[in-house]
């Protein structure tokens, strides 16, 4: 059984994650950090797209070609088109390189291709490019490369383009990272706990709500993916026990609930400012016992006649 058949016969779940990352096309941003490195995931994606028959271009800037090709078998290695910018990044040896403009020239050349084969471009790494090129230029070129196939009219002529960019989050401020993630169709943030790596995948389809999911995985030595369940819940030290919602009305000193009779009485209550006809009649009728009630009041020493003026300052 050839390795390609073996890969295609892999578990459905394994294929799902890589497929979903590659299916949308456009810019796929892999954000990694020192603790959770992303190059192995990048290589897994490269291997997957090579096995699917796509044309794979690698722009190697950060590691040498031997190190990148390590772990791939010869079948895949033959399918990769590797552009090496690691050995001679400033082109001092002045040899006849295929892309004289450096990595930017290589990307721009890829904007202008016309064949219908789907292409995957792996940038190893996008951080290297971001540190050496102006961010706006890089964004413009990435957008041009990853959106060649978005015209509705001639979608059949140019194949789908996926650009996989490896971005080291700690090297950049929030500005460039925010700008790149607003351009990206899919964003994978690598993290994990206690030895298990997780990928938080955020898919931004145009004009639809972004969907996100977290997937626990590990990468096998031959760069195939092994999906796993998350770490067990009991091992987390700070899981709070399920507290039932407290009903605050249980221990009050006053009554909050109304019985049916009380509710009826409340509904039928006439409010003081509601002017009904009975009230009008009551006010118009002359009051019977007006002369009989008197109020006798003697103010004592502490009584405040003017409650608004406690110091008795006002000279009214």
């Amino acid at each position: 059984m050839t390795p390609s058949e073996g890969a295609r016969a892999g578990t459905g779940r394994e294929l799902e994650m890589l497929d979903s990352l590659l299916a949308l096309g456009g810019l796929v941003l892999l954000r990694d950090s020192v603790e959770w490195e992303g190059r192995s995931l990048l290589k897994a994606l490269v291997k997957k797209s090579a096995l699917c028959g796509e044309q794979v271009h690698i722009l190697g800037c950060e590691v040498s070609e031997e190190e990148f090709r390590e772990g791939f078998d010869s079948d895949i290695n033959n399918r990769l088109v590797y552009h090496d910018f690691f050995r001679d990044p400033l082109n001092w040896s002045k040899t006849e390189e295929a892309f004289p403009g450096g990595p930017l020239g290589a990307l721009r050349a890829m904007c202008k291709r016309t064949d219908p084969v789907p292409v995957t471009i792996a940038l190893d790494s996008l951080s290297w490019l971001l540190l050496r090129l102006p961010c706006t230029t890089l964004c413009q070129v990435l957008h041009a490369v990853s959106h060649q196939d978005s015209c509705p009219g001639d979608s059949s002529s140019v194949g789908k383009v996926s650009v996989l960019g490896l971005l080291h989050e700690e090297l950049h401020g929030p500005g460039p990272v925010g700008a790149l993630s607003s351009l990206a169709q899919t964003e994978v943030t690598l993290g994990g706990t206690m030895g298990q790596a997780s990928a938080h995948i955020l898919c931004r389809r145009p004009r639809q709500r972004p969907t996100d999911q977290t997937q626990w995985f590990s990468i096998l030595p031959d760069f195939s993916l092994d999906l796993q369940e998350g770490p067990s819940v009991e091992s987390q030290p700070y899981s709070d026990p399920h507290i039932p919602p407290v009903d605050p009305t249980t221990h009050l000193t006053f009554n909050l609930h109304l019985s049916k009779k009380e509710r009826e009485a409340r509904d039928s209550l006439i409010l003081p400012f509601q002017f009904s006809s009975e009230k009008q009649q009551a006010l118009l009728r002359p009051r019977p016992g007006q002369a009989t009630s008197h109020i006798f009041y003697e103010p004592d020493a502490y009584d405040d006649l003017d409650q608004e003026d406690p110091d008795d300052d006002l000279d009214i």
Partner: protein
Amino acid sequence: MAAVATCGSVAASTGSAVATASKSNVTSFQRRGPRASVTNDSGPRLVSIAGTRPSVRNGQLLVSTGLPALDQLLGGGLAVGTVLLIEEDKYNIYSPLLFKYFLAEGIVNGHTLLVASAKEDPANILQELPAPLLDDKCKKEFDEDVYNHKTPESNIKMKIAWRYQLLPKMEIGPVSSSRFGHYYDASKRMPQELIEASNWHGFFLPEKISSTLKVEPCSLTPGYTKLLQFIQNIIYEEGFDGSNPQKKQRNILRIGIQNLGSPLWGDDICCAENGGNSHSLTKFLYVLRGLLRTSLSACIITMPTHLIQNKAIIARVTTLSDVVVGLESFIGSERETNPLYKDYHGLIHIRQIPRLNNLICDESDVKDLAFKLKRKLFTIEWVQDNYLRQERNIYPPGFSYLLKQKDSAWGEGSLQHSTFLMSFLAKATAFASRLVRHSEPLKQNGSGRIRQAAGPRLWHDGRRQEAPGLLGIPP
């Protein structure tokens, strides 16, 4: 390759048709003087431009933004010659909708469009405009749609706070005579023949710019320079500023600029905090405002302000624009689980309304506006629990909790509610009047656990605050 994608014929000008119809008029009175022998086109004295109306407050000429609810919030519409800035939401889902409504309104009214984008081809943007709803059978669909979503709690009559029920409701369905604002069906596309019959100009940045231009410091980025030149050319050639005497009816130019300030325009304010071109965007807005004020045009700009690193630039941009509307969607934020917002997709903030030829602006006093995108319709409403939230600003928070309980003995109309309210408000007014007279609060003579006459500190240091509880926190 044609640099400017201009589309075919001008919309059939109805001006002259109307003039001829009115010539065969019912009255036999003839106007004496030089106007008696005048031709058809200059018959009516006041030329009114299709799709505009004067504001009822100050006579300013207004155009519709495409959403009648937003028009109502802005005081009738967007004034001709001004800029509407939309601060995009985080995942840029809802701001393109407002952008498209604006352009669709232009097509329906026969205005000229100018669409500028660095991300998408303007022709593609125009293909995705929503279809207008122009006849009455759609009104019935809308009414059903609206009533299906009414919750039963909204029908509780309020006995004490009955004035809250008199608050004006926002219009969400089509009105009968909508010559000014139209309604659109977001699930359908605008028919192709309407798009082709309209006059539009597109500016797609990757086609216009060559990549190896050197940028001088402190000047506009080349993308912005080209865009300004393009706009100026269109305004001059088509006579929107009155320079060429127009043979046809005067019209409005609607300009739409998408994602201004993003790195795709070559501007690095989203990437770096103190970039070299930090004044480029503000200069662009300044020049754009000058162009707009001298021509019959209105502009909508969407800007990803959540990406801008230097907050001072956002403040400058807000000052340089006229109307600023911010969209905040609930996706991914903790407000998504808040039951107060469960029916809505986001909040809409009206951050600024211009004072055009006025000393005061027409700001509505409603602060809690939320939007939701139903399948067909984009609606803007007040958040439903507005009543209780306003109540909480008067009462202490513990009390409004008691009010919210179903069948509570403290509900409206109960004796407990009324006496509590009266004593609470009496204490509040005494406290406030004491503050006014002596400018110092009441001396705390007790143990300190209960603050003496704790009134609602509503206007502490000039800003309205939440009412504190009755039990003060011990120091």
